[in-house]
C-alpha cells in the first residue's frame, strides 16, 4: 500500500504545507509600509475594499484575538457559559465576578456591538439600581459608561456606542432620581482617595458638566453616523439632534439647580445658537428630497417647488421631522428662557420651594404666589408653553407647594388663584408631583 517510511511521509506533508502556504502568502500578503494598497495581496485588497477584515471593525486586541484562536471553534460555547455565569453572578449579587465575566465576554466578542450595548446598559442601569448608597450607585453608572467607552475604542467605526455612552453620561446622570448627587459627583467623584476631590479622569478629563461631556461624545457619534449612516436604525434627524439637545439640557439643568445667573443665560443662548444655526441648517434627505429643519412652511413650499416635488408631501415630511425632534419647541424655549420674565418665574418658584424645605412657610408662600403669577403671564404670552410638559410640571409643582403651605397654616384654598385653570386641567400629573414632593421634602 504505502511504501514510504514514517519520516518520508512527514517530509511529504511538510512539502505540501509549504507549497500550499506559498499562494496563501502571495494572495493574502498584508500592506507593507504606508503606501497604497498596491503591494497588498489580492485577498487582502478585497478584504480592504469590502470592509471584511477584523481591523476594519476597529482596533484588534491581541489578547482577545489570541483567546479566540486558543478556543478553536469553542468561542460560542465559552461565551454562552460566561453569559450564564454573569447572569448567575448578577442574581447572587456577586459583583466582582460579574464584572470579570463581562470583561471576559467582550474579550470573546469584541466586535459584537449588542454585547457592549446590553452590558453597558446593564451595569449603568440594573447593577447600579441594586446598590443602596448613592455613591455606590454612581460607581456602577460610571462602570457602565467606562465599559461603553472601551467599546467605542475597540469599535471605532460604530456610531451606536458613543451614542449609548452619551445617554449614560447625559440622561442617566442628569435625569435619574439621584441626579442632584450624580451631577455633583461627576465633577467631584465621591472616591476622594482615588481622585483627590476631582472628577474621574477616565470619563471626565476636562472636569466639565455631565451634559457637556455627553455632548462631546454625541458629536463623535454624529461624525461616525455621517460616515456610515446605514449602521443606525434611528431617524437621522433624531440621532443627530442629541449633541444640541445636550447643550439645551445643560442649560435646563443649571436652572434646576438654582443657577439663574449669567451661566444659565449663556448656556441657553449657546443652546439656541447651536440649535438654530448648526442643527437647524444641517441637510437631511427625506423621501421628497433634501431639506433642513430651520424652515417655515413658506420656505418648505419654495424648496419643494424648486426641486419639482409635491409641495404637500414635502411640507408634511419636514413638519413631521420638526415634530419628531421638537424643533420648534426647543427653538422657542431656548429663546424664551433668556427672557427676564421666564428667569424671574423660575427663580421665584425655586426659591419658594427651598424656603418650604427650610420651614419658612410664609416666605415660601409669598415667593411661590409671585412665581405662579408670573407663570400665568407666561402662559398667556407664549401659548406654546401650555403644551410643554416641563413648564406644566413646574407650574403645577408651584401650586402644589403653595396649597400644602395653606393647609399647614390652616388657611382655606381660594377658589381662584393664579394658574387655577391650568391646575384644574392637568390633574393627571399630580401623582408624579406628589411623589417628587415626598422625595424632595421627606414629607408625606
Amino acid at each position, binding site marked *: 500500500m504505502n511504501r514510504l517510511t514514517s519520516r518520508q511521509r512527514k517530509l511529504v506533508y511538510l512539502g505540501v504545507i509549504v507549497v500550499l502556504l506559498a499562494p496563501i502568502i502571495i494572495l493574502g500578503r498584508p500592506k507593507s509600509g504606508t503606501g497604497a494598497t498596491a503591494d497588498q495581496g489580492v485577498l487582502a485588497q478585497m478584504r480592504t475594499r469590502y470592509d471584511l477584515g477584523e481591523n476594519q471593525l476597529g482596533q484588534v486586541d491581541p*489578547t482577545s484575538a489570541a483567546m479566540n484562536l486558543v478556543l478553536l471553534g469553542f468561542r460560542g460555547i465559552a461565551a454562552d457559559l460566561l453569559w450564564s455565569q454573569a447572569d*448567575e*453572578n448578577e*442574581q*447572587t*449579587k*456577586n*459583583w*466582582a*465576578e460579574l*464584572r*470579570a465575566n463581562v*470583561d471576559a465576554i467582550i*474579550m470573546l466578542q469584541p466586535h459584537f456591538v449588542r454585547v457592549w450595548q446590553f452590558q453597558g446598559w446593564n451595569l449603568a442601569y440594573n447593577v447600579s439600581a441594586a*446598590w*443602596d*448608597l*448613592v455613591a*455606590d450607585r454612581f*460607581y456602577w453608572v*460610571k462602570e457602565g459608561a*467606562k465599559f461603553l467607552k472601551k467599546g467605542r475604542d475597540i469599535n471605532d467605526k460604530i456610531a451606536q456606542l458613543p451614542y449609548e455612552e452619551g445617554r449614560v453620561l447625559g440622561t442617566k446622570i442628569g435625569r435619574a*432620581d*439621584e441626579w442632584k*448627587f450624580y451631577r455633583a459627583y461627576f465633577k467631584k*467623584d465621591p*472616591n476622594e*482617595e*482615588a*481622585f483627590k476631590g476631582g472628577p*474621574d*479622569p*477616565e470619563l471626565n478629563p476636562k472636569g466639565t458638566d455631565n451634559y457637556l461631556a455627553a455632548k462631546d461624545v454625541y458629536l463623535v457619534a454624529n461624525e461616525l453616523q455621517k460616515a456610515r449612516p446605514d449602521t443606525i436604525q434611528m431617524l437621522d434627524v433624531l440621532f443627530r439632534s442629541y449633541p444640541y439637545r445636550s447643550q439645551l439640557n445643560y442649560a435646563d439643568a443649571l436652572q434646576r439647580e438654582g443657577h439663574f445667573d449669567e451661566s444659565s443665560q449663556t448656556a441657553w443662548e449657546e443652546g439656541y445658537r447651536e440649535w438654530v444655526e448648526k442643527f437647524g441648517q444641517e441637510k437631511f434627505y427625506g423621501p421628497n428630497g433634501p431639506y433642513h429643519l430651520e424652515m417655515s412652511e413658506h420656505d418648505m413650499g419654495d424648496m419643494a417647488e424648486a426641486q419639482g416635488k409635491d409641495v404637500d408631501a414635502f411640507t408634511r415630511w419636514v413638519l413631521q421631522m420638526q415634530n419628531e425632534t421638537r424643533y420648534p419647541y426647543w427653538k422657542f424655549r431656548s429663546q424664551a428662557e433668556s427672557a427676564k420674565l421666564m428667569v424671574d418665574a423660575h427663580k421665584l418658584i425655586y426659591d419658594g420651594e427651598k424656603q418650604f424645605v427650610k420651614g419658612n412657610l410664609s416666605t415660601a408662600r409669598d415667593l411661590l404666589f409671585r412665581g405662579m403669577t408670573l407663570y400665568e403671564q407666561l402662559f398667556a404670552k407664549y401659548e406654546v408653553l401650555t403644551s410643554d410638559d416641563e413648564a406644566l410640571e413646574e407650574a403645577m409643582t408651584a401650586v402644589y407647594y403653595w396649597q400644602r403651605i395653606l393647609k399647614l397654616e390652616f388657611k382655606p384654598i381660594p377658589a381662584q388663584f393664579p394658574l387655577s385653570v391650568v391646575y384644574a386641567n392637568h390633574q393627571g400629573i399630580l401623582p408624579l408631583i406628589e411623589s417628587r414632593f*415626598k*422625595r424632595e421634602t*421627606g414629607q408625606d
Partner: protein
Amino acid sequence: MNFDPRAFDIVQGVGTWLKVMGACAILVLVASLAASFGLGLGGPVRVFRQLFSAIRDISEISLRRVWALAVLTAREAIRRKALLVFGLFAILFMFGSWFLSGGGEKADIQIERHVVFVFTAISWLVLPVVLMLACWGIPEDIKARSIHTVVTKPVRRVEIVLGRMLGFTLITTLVVGVMGVAGYIWIDRQISREAHGQLLCKVPIYGKLSFLDRQGQPASIGINVGDVWTFRSYIEGSTKATAIWDFERLSEASLMPISTKDQGETRGLRVQTGFESFRTHKGVMNSGLLCQLTLVNPATSLRVPLPAFEVAEYRGDANVTPVPATLTYYDSEARKSKTVDLVKDVIADGKLKIEARCLNGEQFLGMARPDMFIRTADRHFAVGFFKALSGVWLQAVVIVMIGVAASCFLKGPIATLMTFAVLIVGQSFRTMIDKIVSGDQLGGGPFESIYRMVTHLNQTVDLDLSKTVTGTIKWTDWISQQGIWLVQQTFPNFSYFGMSPYVAKGFDVDFRAAILPSFAVALAYFIPCVLLGYFALKLRELESK
C-alpha cells in the same frame, strides 16, 4: 453563590465513608467470589489467598522503597517537561494585570478579582498537568516495558502505587508552592495602595439565626421581598420584625482593641454586619437604612440597645459596630442611663444574643446567617491565602490518587477520560445529583420520570395510577436512588476544595468548614485508590500493552 461556611460533621463523614466502603467491598467480594467459581471449586480459595497476600504486602511496606520510587517518579515527571507549566503561568501573570486593574476600582472588588484570577490560573494550569502525568505514567511504563525493571526487583506492587502517588504529589507540591508564592507576590504588587489596607483575613465567629415576624412571633425565616435569590430573607422596618443571632463560645479573649466615639481607644467586641437594603420607596436617598442592634443576655434577659447605624450595603468592612467592654445605655423602662460590663453582665457562659431591627418604616433589611459575625483578631492575608492554596493542592493530590489508580487498570487515554469525568462530576454536577438522590427533583426518580415522559404527564401533577402501581414505582425509584447515592458518594465532593472565596471576600479559611473536610476527602480517597491500584497492578498481565 451562597457564602455560608458550615462546620463539617466529621462523625457523619466517617460514618458515610464506612458505609460506602463497606458496600463497595461487599459488592467487589461477592462479584470476585462469583467469578472465581469459573475456576472451579478452588476459585474462592484463590480469592481469599489473594486477600491474605494483600494484607501481607501492605503490612510489609518499606518506606525506603516507596521514597525511592517516588523520587524516580518525580524525576520522570520533570523529564516529561511537566515544569513547562511555569512558562504558561508566567505569561498569564505578565499580562493578567492588563485586564484586571481598572482606575478607581472599589478595593474589595479589586482584591476579589485578583484573588479569583490567581486561584483560577493555578487550578486550571495545575489540574490538567497532574491529571495527564498521573494517568499516563504507569501505562507508558508498561508500554515501554520499563516497569519490568521495577517489578523484577524486590518491590511490592503496593509500593509502586504508593511511590507513584507520592512522586506526583511531590511535583504537585513544588508546582503549587512556586505558583502560590509567585501569585501572592503578584497580588501584593498589583493591588493599589488604597486597597492594601483591606488585604487581610477576618476571623469570624458565626451565630445561629432565627426570626420574629412583624407581630413579634417566632418565625423560621423573614419576608420574601421577591428577590430571585432566596439566600437572604427580610425584616420590615418599624415593626416588631427582628433577626436574632445566638452566639456561643465568647469570652474575654474575644474582646479586641476598638475605637468608639465616646470612649476613644478601648477594648470590646467587633460586630460586623452585611445586611442588604430593600426600599419600597426612595426615602432619604443619600443615607442608608437605619439598623439597631440590641445585645441580650440569654440567661437574665438584660437588654442593652446599641446606637443605630446606617447600613452600608455591600461595603463589607464599613459595617463594623464596636461594642465596648463597658457599655452605657439608656434604659427606657427605668428611664435612666445605666452602665454594664459586657463580659460579666451581658455575656452568659460565653453565650450572647444579638437582635437586629430596621428602623425605617416601609423599608426592609435582608439578612442571612453569615451576615452578622463577631470579628476576632484579623490575620495576615498570607495566612488565608496559603490555606486556600492548600485546597488547590489537595484537589490536585486527589486527582493524582484517582489518576494513578485508574492508570493501573486502564490505558492512558481511557484513564485520562475517566479521571477527567470524575473531576467534572465532582466539581460541577454535585448539586444536580444531590437533588436526584434526595428526591427533590421534580417528576420523581427514573421510573416515575419514564412514565411521565411516555404519558406526557406534567411534573407537578400526581400520578394517575392505582395506589399499588404508584407505590411500586415509588419503591423501585427509592431502590434506584440508593444505587445513585452509592455512585454519587464514590465521586469526590470537590466543593470543599474551592477555598478561594474565603480569601477573595477577605476571610480566613475556616478549618472546620473547609480544611478539615478537604483533608477528610483526600484521606477517604487515599485508601480505596491505593487498594484499587494495588489489586489492579497485582492481578493484571503486565505483558499486555
